[in-house]
């Protein structure tokens, strides 16, 4: 059976290192990702609330900053490649972010059916993982797993 740890209870990574930074580290990459997110999470009622996308952007930026050079490079490369490929696949002479939402959705759907589906999955996966952790987004899809969404406990994680 485990024994009681002799560890100083104040040890562990300081809470200040677990909070989001005030400014984005990679604003361009985040903008590219949000161009995908805005149309990925668009329902028949329209795009998701702006504040939720802002939150998603900050979380994604923090994820990229902290997740290590190899993971970060891979994700940024997938994002960059997607932003180059999507207009070509969709026959659109403008960047993904500059396309109207409906057109962007059609273009991304075409990417998802084609040879670059893996690229889109990589980008989409991290966006979805973070997005559905937001309590409102989780609620909208009927998810109430208290241990897996943004909860009071999570916001107080550094103070435990």
């Amino acid at each position, binding site marked *: 059976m485990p024994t009681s740890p002799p560890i100083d209870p104040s040890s562990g990574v300081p809470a200040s290192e677990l909070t989001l930074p005030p400014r984005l580290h990679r604003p361009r990459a985040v903008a590219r990702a949000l161009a995908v997110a805005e149309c*990925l999470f668009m329902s028949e009622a329209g795009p998701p609330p702006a504040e939720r996308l802002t939150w998603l952007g900050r979380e994604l930026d923090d994820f990229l900053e902290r997740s290590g050079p190899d993971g970060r490079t891979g994700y940024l490369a997938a994002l960059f490649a997607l932003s180059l490929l999507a207009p070509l696949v969709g026959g659109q002479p403008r960047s993904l972010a500059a396309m109207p939402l409906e057109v962007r959705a059609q273009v991304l759907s075409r990417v998802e059916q084609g040879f670059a589906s893996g690229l889109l999955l990589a980008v989409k*996966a991290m966006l979805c993982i973070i997005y559905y952790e937001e309590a409102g987004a989780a609620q909208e899809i009927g998810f109430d797993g208290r241990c897996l969404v943004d909860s009071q406990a999570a916001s107080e*994680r550094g103070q435990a």
Partner: protein
Amino acid sequence: MSGLKSVPLSGARRSDGGGDAITQGRLVDREVDLELDCDVVVVGSGASGAAVAHELTAAGQRVIVLEEGGYFRPEQYGAMRPSETLRHLFRDGGLTFVLGVGDSPMVNMTMGRCVGGSSVLTGGVCFRIPGSILAGWHAMGLTMFTEEALEPAYQAVERATHIEEVPIQMRSQSTLAFERGARRLGYELKPMRRNTLGCDGCGRCNFGCPHQAKLSVDIAYLPGALAGGARLVSDCRVDTILTHGERAVGVTGRLYNGGGLRKPGSHFRVRARRVVMAAGAYNTPGVLRRLGIGRQSGQLGRNMTVHPAFRMMARFDRELNGWKGALQSAFSDAYEHERITLTALYVPPGVLAATMKGIGPEHVEKARGVPRLSIFGGMLHDDPGGQLHHLLGRTFSTYRMSARDREAMVRITEVMAETYFAAGAEQVYLPILGMDPVRSMDDLRRIDLRRIPAKRFECSSQHPLGTTRMGVSPAHSVIDPNGACWELEELFVVDGGIVPSSLGVNPQQAIMTLATRIAWHLRERPLPKS
């Protein structure tokens, strides 16, 4: 390393860096290099390293454990959301990919990078090594690994980590749905065994248990080792093994106190009478390679097995809320003869939503179906098709799936889909990128799965094994059956790299057991003079 200051370990920490037992490398003053001294330095604090540290400390040896990742208290990681756990505790944020060569899938391989290693991030699943696997090892000459010989180490691990069966009442509705289909097809699910105590089934053990009910090694082993006098340094990357003549005498590396993972900071050197590598099958070979170890056999970094795993989702006509219940509560070995193990699991809703085809309203509609989804996984007892490569100081890996594994991958898909339809699923989402869900077995039969490129299969792995495999001859293996490196004295390897073949089941208990067995051997083996 010239000009190293000799700093006692406790003196190297700042006041907020933890007790005397733990030094967080990230908090050490950048102007300070560390020079430490011990009997045994253990590189890696995961399942194997923690077990070895625990055993050797109990035997009175002075042990220092080095960990590349950070130190998070259980109540810290237990309060994180999955994406926070990914960014703080997983290697590469969970975005490590194994490049499929030829007609092989790309494999997303997730590994821990924190104090406690991957044990913090498993579903807690524990299996003894199957008899059929031990028989295969005997054919390799490893006849000392019998169930009787391993029994004492199994029992020690099971006591220390409290391995118990998951009660049937903790099965989620998602698992019960799959089970109904299995029964109709004539096979049963068996209860999983996990290292838990007081689990309430909140369904997120693989992102760090929020209730400290999973006895990962940061809870089960390390506290005892630290109480017994072991010391742990986190946030430090071991670059090289120090040698004197034909003997390992310590390790050197850098602390992550330079401002980020790309900017290692001050140096450290640990002098030791014995070096134990426990950095995992993915990382240990890179350190050994710098010494030229492995040239003799040509086996270092080769023979990697990954247990390719495929996740199947099925949509039912009612809400299952599959996140309520134990994450991994049951398994089936009914297809063991086809080298397939089926295991219950659950993943966060974002992961479910991401893998379903669709953008915009189509995606949102499918995401709203998450409460009606059941999920089950299939894992393959694979042939050793993986290899590690090193370029510009970085490690990457490739995987060439064998023809029979390629066929088994299709079988996993067929078996799980058939089970779900037998259970009454409305739609089944095959683990194939960009594919619409299928609605019946007739739909499934119309799809020629064998003609679909393997790269479209969504494949993951949590179990790299075999890259420093043990054997009875230096011509065919990197280490001997007692964990000793054939090519350098007093260098031992204890992590999953030593496992000489795929296990076909989750390897956590096997790794802890083999490490415990090696630790007992080291306990009896006199330490060399300094």
